[in-house]
């Protein structure tokens, strides 16, 4: 597939946005049961703003993927069948939740109206909203991932690993961002968020490696034999029927060499996993306020490469029909 930057940005930005929101809420939850130091409204409002900005930027990027963005509203109509439609519904919900979550923190609607768990868990509006947000964020991960995972023709994508990857990578980057944000603010949550980030990064490493291994030995269902219905071992396309290229030769091909693909794979495997982990762990030792930020940036850069590779790696069966010019 052709890796379109609009989609690469969309999925990585909202992934980080959702992850950051989940990190904020995890922090709130931990602090409300006094496991970690509580943070002021600025922390949540600021974090929510960053999360919202990421979501907005992702949405903005997605518009570049649309031929007719002015009609994007129509995309909400087929939620019964289309994961894309579902994403289009869930993403604004996510943004709304984040917005109000941040807003309520900012205006201080944090008075508990009920205390649950025998006096342990005070419940306020933000916490309710947060729980809702968790459900929506997870739903959004699933919707986004299922857009790809549900296309059975793209066998590299058509696997639960895709959902795992999108979710864990999004959470890893989001928690890493939370660590970076904490480092930037100079609070004591760098270690908390950093450790969660490490956990999610390792989980992501697991699913991503599994998907890479799966795809390396993937045997595609379609062959030239099934594509044209001729049973012979040696079939070669001589002419795709036109010489100047078409939508089918642009949308489904990355037009890069296999060497370049390998390079990108190596790059993301280094940038997403060991390097940020190394940086964040070092930052604990050095108490550096900048290294967590660097860790996030490096990991995000790696995610761009990861997503690029995700597209490039997928071989669409239609490509069997578009191989040769003569």
């Amino acid at each position, binding site marked *: 597939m052709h890796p379109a930057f609009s989609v690469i940005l969309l999925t990585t930005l909202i992934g980080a946005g959702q992850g950051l929101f989940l990190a904020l809420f995890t922090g709130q939850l931990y602090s409300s049961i006094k496991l970690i130091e509580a943070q002021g409204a600025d922390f949540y409002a600021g974090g929510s703003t960053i999360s919202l900005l990421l979501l907005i930027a992702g949405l903005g990027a997605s518009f570049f993927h649309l031929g007719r963005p002015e009609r994007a509203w129509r995309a909400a109509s087929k939620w019964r069948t289309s994961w894309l439609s579902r994403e289009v519904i869930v993403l604004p919900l996510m943004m709304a939740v984040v917005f109000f979550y941040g807003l309520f923190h900012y205006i201080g609607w944090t008075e508990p109206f009920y205390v649950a768990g025998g006096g342990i868990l005070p419940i306020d509006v933000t916490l309710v909203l947060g729980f809702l947000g968790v459900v929506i964020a997870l739903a959004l991960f699933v919707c986004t991932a299922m857009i790809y995972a549900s296309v059975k023709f793209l066998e590299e994508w058509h696997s639960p690993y895709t959902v795992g990857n999108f979710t864990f990578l999004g959470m890893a980057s989001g928690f890493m961002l939370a660590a970076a944000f904490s480092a930037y603010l100079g609070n004591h949550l760098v270690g908390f968020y950093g450790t969660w980030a490490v956990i999610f990064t390792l989980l992501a490493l697991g699913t991503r490696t599994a998907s890479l291994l799966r795809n390396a030995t993937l045997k595609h269902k379609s062959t030239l034999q099934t594509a044209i219905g001729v049973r012979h071992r040696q079939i*070669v396309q*001589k002419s795709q*029927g*036109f*010489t*100047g290229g078409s939508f089918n030769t642009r949308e489904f091909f990355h037009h890069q060499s296999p060497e370049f693909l390998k390079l990108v794979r190596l790059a993301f495997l280094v940038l997403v996993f060991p390097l940020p982990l190394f940086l964040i762990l070092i930052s604990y030792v050095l108490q550096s306020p900048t290294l967590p930020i660097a860790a996030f940036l490096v990991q995000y850069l790696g995610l761009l490469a990861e997503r690029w590779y995700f597209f490039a790696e997928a071989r669409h069966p239609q490509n069997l029909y578009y191989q*040769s*010019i*003569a």
Partner: protein
Amino acid sequence: MQDPAVHTDQTAGHTEVKETTCYMCACRCGIRVHLRDGQVRYIEGNPNHPLNHGVICAKGSSGIMKQVSPARLTKPLRRKPGAHRGDSEFEEISWKEAMDMLAERLGKLRGTDPKKFALFTGRDQMQALTGMFAKQFGTPNYAAHGGFCSVNMATGMIYTIGGSFWEFGGPDLERAKLFVMIGTAEDHHSNPLKIQLSKFKRRGGRFISVNPIRTGYSAIADEWVPIKPGTDGALFLALIHEIIKLGLFDRDFLTQYTNAAELVVDDPSRDDHGMFLRDPDAEIVEGCTDPQNKLWWERNKNAPVLARSEGADPRLMGGYTMPDGTPVKPSFQLLKERVEPYTPEWAEGITGIPAETIRRLAHEMGVTARDHKIELPIRWTDCWDKEHDTVTGNPVAFHAMRGLAAHSNGFQSIRGLSILMTVLGTIDRPGGFRHRAPFPRPIPPCPKPPHHPDAVQPDTPLDGMPLGWPSTPEHLFVDDDGKPVRLDKAFSWEYPLSAHGLMHNVITNAWRGDPYPIDTLFLFMANMAWNSSMNTQDARRMLTDKDENGEYKIPFLAVCDTYSSETVAFADLVLPDTTYLERHDVLSMLDRPISEFDGPVDAVRLPVLPPKGESRPFQDVLIELAGRLKLPAFTKEDGTPKYRNYPDFVVNYETSPGSGIGFLAGWRGKFGEKYLKGEPNPRQWEQYAANNCFFHHELPRSYQYMRNWNKGYLHWARGHGLTRWAEPITLHIYSEVLQRFRAAAQGKRPGRQPPDHLRERIETYFDPLPFYYEPLESQLVDRSTYNLTALTQRPMAMYHSWDSQNAWLRQIHSHNYLFVNPKLAIAQGIEDGDWIWVESHLGRVKCMCRYSESVEPGTVWTWNAIGKASGAWGLAANAAESRKGFLLNHLIGEELPQGGAGQHLSNSDPITGQAAWFDLRVRIYKAEDQDKSVTEPQFKPMKTLPGQTARARSRWQAYVAGVFGRR
């Protein structure tokens, strides 16, 4: 969006449907052009048309794009004063200026030396008019493109069976059971052949394709027989060998309808050796081409009798001695002796086809012809008054085209094919080969070229036809020293039977001044500075070359074309022609009609759109010019022009006053009540318009077969002016015509003899029986260096150079590759897609390689005429056609290597002058620099001409009829 089920096209704008005839290629299908608000909405095949029955091809469907082409010429242009020829620096002039300029120049030439004017046209379907103009002008220097197209096919077959493929005849696939197609990719008779092929296959017919390359029609063959190019003759001879050896020939057919049993003098010491023995007392029709006064050897009497005597049964084989001691043999015996050494094993070594396959093919042909006979209950009478209750068919059909024709041994190969078809008894019979009116014609047909330089006189029409069919050396157009009179040296001792001229040598000969310099070269629709020339780079140089006085060696070049072809850049005067949708045209019985097997058909084009800009139909230009020059046939007694315009000419012209024969055969007579012959009908165009634009006369069933010998048909044809003679047209297994030339070369014949340096050439090639020889280029170049043959195939979605300007068709073929068998390529370290050099004795071109398993390993090939010169045809200077496309023509000599032993002999068949495109020998090797991804040679970009449409450069083209370019 509106529900498509309620959408109807009828209500979107003002809709009209007009009928005319397609001209996206030479096939000429009937079309219905749908217009919406004056723009072409849709072009569909006319379901009532006998040629295409409603179907239409990729080109025909893309006719719309011709109307919006940025290559359209819309203004007459003159080369700017001081600008160099070839730089495409032009200024607009008015038609009046253009015509004044041309009329003045041509008037002077006509008054002094008419042969200094040469008119050559790419278009051979308008020869009746263009040839007439040349004849009336008085110049012998006229021809269409047949010389470099397939004159070998026309002559090889017409000199043998009195008809040929395409317009002249074809395979009867409706009844054939075995169809053998040789050397055919896309065909002239494109849609009809496609229609028939599919029906044939669906009926369970067996289809064998003999071709070095498997594309197009060959793709659906039941069997592909790859053959080395230029060796088809060897295959036919071996097939004939096997068929004669096993007795699989049709004896009855051969004896009665061919000259197989006719006795030939067999005594090399005698002057009449190789000539038919004739009975001086036999009654013959004076003047006819092939009098019935030859002899048979009667097997029961064991004595000579007049051929086809009542009850006689002749010998086909053996040698006999006449009562006067003259040794004679039936010509079939001579054929048998000829093919004796041509065994399948011998042919295997030449053709690359296993001997076993050749034998099997011969058996399939022979057994199908003999055991699957068709008997149609059709009564007919032969020329000897014998009544037949049925028409018999031997259902083996053949078709062949340029793969045979475009070789220097093509004429003899095609003679071989014609004889193969004849020994199988398939000529003008159901399931075999069928003629199309006006064929069959006498062997050879009657028109002759002038035969002496005196035929060319100032202010006088040419004495004779510019093109014709010589049957003796006396018909050659040479002077008393045997030197050519025509610029292209047609009908000279170099190429005696060049019935279509040698357009491919015109530029070189004119440039060299050999046989003489000319003044004005007028080219119509012929891309002689590109894909219609061999040795294109030199052709371009010659067009711009100057003599010591600084004058162009070809002083004046006028070009009439619809589009800015490469050739237009070299013109001194450019005349913008219209497209096929903007003019009247006739597909005339005097020319190349579209007849069916069952009778004559001709057709017209009617304008469905007004001419664009100031473009004018070339026919109108020619008729106005003829009037201005006061050419007799175009001028009234008072000296004023006789015809207003082309439509007026078509209706009112008669071949001679009162002949009743004109350009159109249908609806003649005052009220349109007559056909073929009849006085002019002023409403003839309207009647064509009301009848789907064609006229079809279906012959009675008894006239539809065996027409060479069908008394009823021949008299009908004579009566309706189709043929000169009603005599039987006996098939020429043995060609006495060729023997006459050979005897002249041997000094055994009174009258004209070839110049000494050509004696051996004539003696060798004018063999009365078919034989195989290696193509001339192969004989002259080092075959171990140039170890491959390079060919072109015409893609079905492109017609020569015409369609690169077509936005839709060019997306299918914007550039081309050289197809190479991987075995060959890998041995040379060439990978699929690599840049390679293709080199011939003449030079080299750089292009990309594409592996193909469907090409014989000794052959490489590419699609024809995809490569374009930068900037030509309205394309951007960096268009793929010029950057990635290439033209093989650069490698093909218009003359034989090494100047043809210093004689400047054309790279052509020595009998007919057919350009030997497919003799090209090359070698290939990997290009050193793989990164420089541009084909070579490259040329300076051609500039956009004044009057060319400027919209060309916009990024988007969203054609919607009715609103395109208007919003």
